[in-house]
């Protein structure tokens, strides 16, 4: 591989958590033999603290004001020039929404394989990448021909807290981006007005997924939530269908929750859902599919039809009172 690049997503001093995790994945790869690790930092701000003291070999600083805000055209032009100049063998990023937006475009432009959303790798012999397919129901081992590869690591694959210690040199990279014309005009980011529920503070959550089947069945989970004194949460499809408000959605594009009890009912447990709930205290999953990925994070599992279990659970809880 030689040089390993890790593309850092940052905003001012804040480094995206998934980038920090990917640094740790990149460190493991580097330590598998004879490689060097270079963090690529975009924008005119000074390298943020966690980067300066961590166990990487060098910070390549693309010190340009045009890279302060995300612009796919500028990011791609800068990365393309840097890659041409430095010839890395591996280019790693966290699988963030921003990475989803520009990395595939860069990959096809420079003709490199891009393996997205990896959950690991095996580095003995030829490098093999592990990634989920079929929404996490199956895992795949993927290989590439010899030559440079682009990879993104799924959120939560590596730790983000301990990045080791080091004193990487900072090398400023000078690029001419004056010819880049942005065709995409971005306005400031915003959040929707907050609703009335704050799931992040709930102690118990009864969360419902597409397995509920029909809107009229929602009342059984509403009743269960009431009996448990829990807030109602959901996966994305339930919100997409308009059966619950968006502020009840748990996951990467909804709320991140850590209740003491999280009951997942008819939820398959796709990664975008898991990232929002897997740090809950006690996770119970009710799903008729024994292979549903939600069971990978559940403490208690019930493989059965929710329409039989939920009413029985309501009865049992009422009996307790």
């Amino acid at each position, binding site marked *: 591989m030689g040089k390993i690049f890790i593309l850092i997503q940052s905003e001012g001093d804040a480094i995206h958590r998934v980038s920090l995790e990917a640094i740790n994945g990149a460190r493991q790869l580097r330590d598998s033999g004879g490689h060097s690790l270079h963090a690529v930092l975009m924008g005119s701000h000074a390298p943020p603290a966690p980067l300066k003291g961590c166990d990487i070999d060098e910070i390549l600083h693309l010190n340009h004001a045009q890279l302060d805000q995300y612009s796919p055209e500028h990011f791609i032009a800068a990365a393309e020039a840097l890659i041409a100049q430095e010839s890395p063998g591996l280019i790693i990023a966290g699988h963030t929404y921003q990475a989803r937006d520009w990395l595939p475009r860069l990959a096809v432009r420079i003709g*490199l*394989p891009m393996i997205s959303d990896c959950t690991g790798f095996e580095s003995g012999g030829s490098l093999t990448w592990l990634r989920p397919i079929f929404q996490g129901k199956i895992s795949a081992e993927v290989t590439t021909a010899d030559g440079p590869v682009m990879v993104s690591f799924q959120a939560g694959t590596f730790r983000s807290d301990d990045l080791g210690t080091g004193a990487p040199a900072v090398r400023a990279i000078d690029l001419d981006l004056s010819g880049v014309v942005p065709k995409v005009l971005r306005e400031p980011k915003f959040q929707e007005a907050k609703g009335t529920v704050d799931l992040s503070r709930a102690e118990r959550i009864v969360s419902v997924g597409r397995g509920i089947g029909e809107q009229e069945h929602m009342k059984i989970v509403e009743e269960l939530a009431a009996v448990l004194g829990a807030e109602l949460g959901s996966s994305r499809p339930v919100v997409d269908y308009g059966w619950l408000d968006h502020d009840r959605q748990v996951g990467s594009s909804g709320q991140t929750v850590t209740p003491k009890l999280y009951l997942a009912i008819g939820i398959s447990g796709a990664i975008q859902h898991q990232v929002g709930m897997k740090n809950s205290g006690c996770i119970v*999953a009710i799903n008729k599919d024994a292979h549903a990925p939600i069971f990978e994070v559940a403490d*208690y599992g019930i493989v059965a039809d929710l329409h039989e279990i939920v009413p029985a659970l309501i009865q*049992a809880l009422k009996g307790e009172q």
Partner: protein
Amino acid sequence: MKQIPDPASALHIRADELWIDESNLVYSANESDTYALEEALLLKEAHGGEVVVVTVGSARTTQMLKDALAKGAGRAIRVALEGDGDLDSNGMAHLLAAALREEAFDLILTGLQSDDAGHGQLGPMLAELLDLPHVTLVVATDIEAASIKVKQELEGGWFQNVTLTLPALLTIQSGINKPRYASLKGIMAMKSKKIRDVQPAGLGIDPQQLAPLQTVKRIYLPIKSKETVFLEGSPAEVAAQLVDKLTNEAKVL
């Protein structure tokens, strides 16, 4: 639009462990692609124009294409390919780009991710090859003369409004609209609509561009990282066990 094994179907790994067993599966349109189709139909109804549905796939995709035509697409193009497993994202992007270059379009909509292979790459790659501006994860659109303003979903409940000049490419996120069902009238009208089959060989692509850059070596059932305690018995027994465990073991009740 991509046709994929219906997410509700039970998947079995093929004996060679290279892909799933595709016999006896029910297929349906990829979820975010159905939202992309609906958005295209809504834009056509508001601003005029034509919706053309394009897929790369086998004869099996006829059902999906007919359904799209019945919902209101004007015509369909199928780049005929038996088993798309041999193409990776890069090859698929080159193939689709070659087919689309023969068309005059103002807007290309794709789903944000296929729920089988899950690359989430084809939209931006296609935009690159066709030299179009693009935005991913679009949750609202608004056409203004020669440009389009869209709302992009960012992480953790943040959004950003983005304006692009047309022609452009958008990848559509689920929930942007409420996909319709085909009406009886639509189904009747569908019968006179055309599905045009395009042979990859006729597109003048350098075979080198279709050569996969990545290859699936093995697929397997995920290895569990957590010890899940599975509760068994009749619904009443399971419910009683769970209440007991939550009260006395996990101490969360």
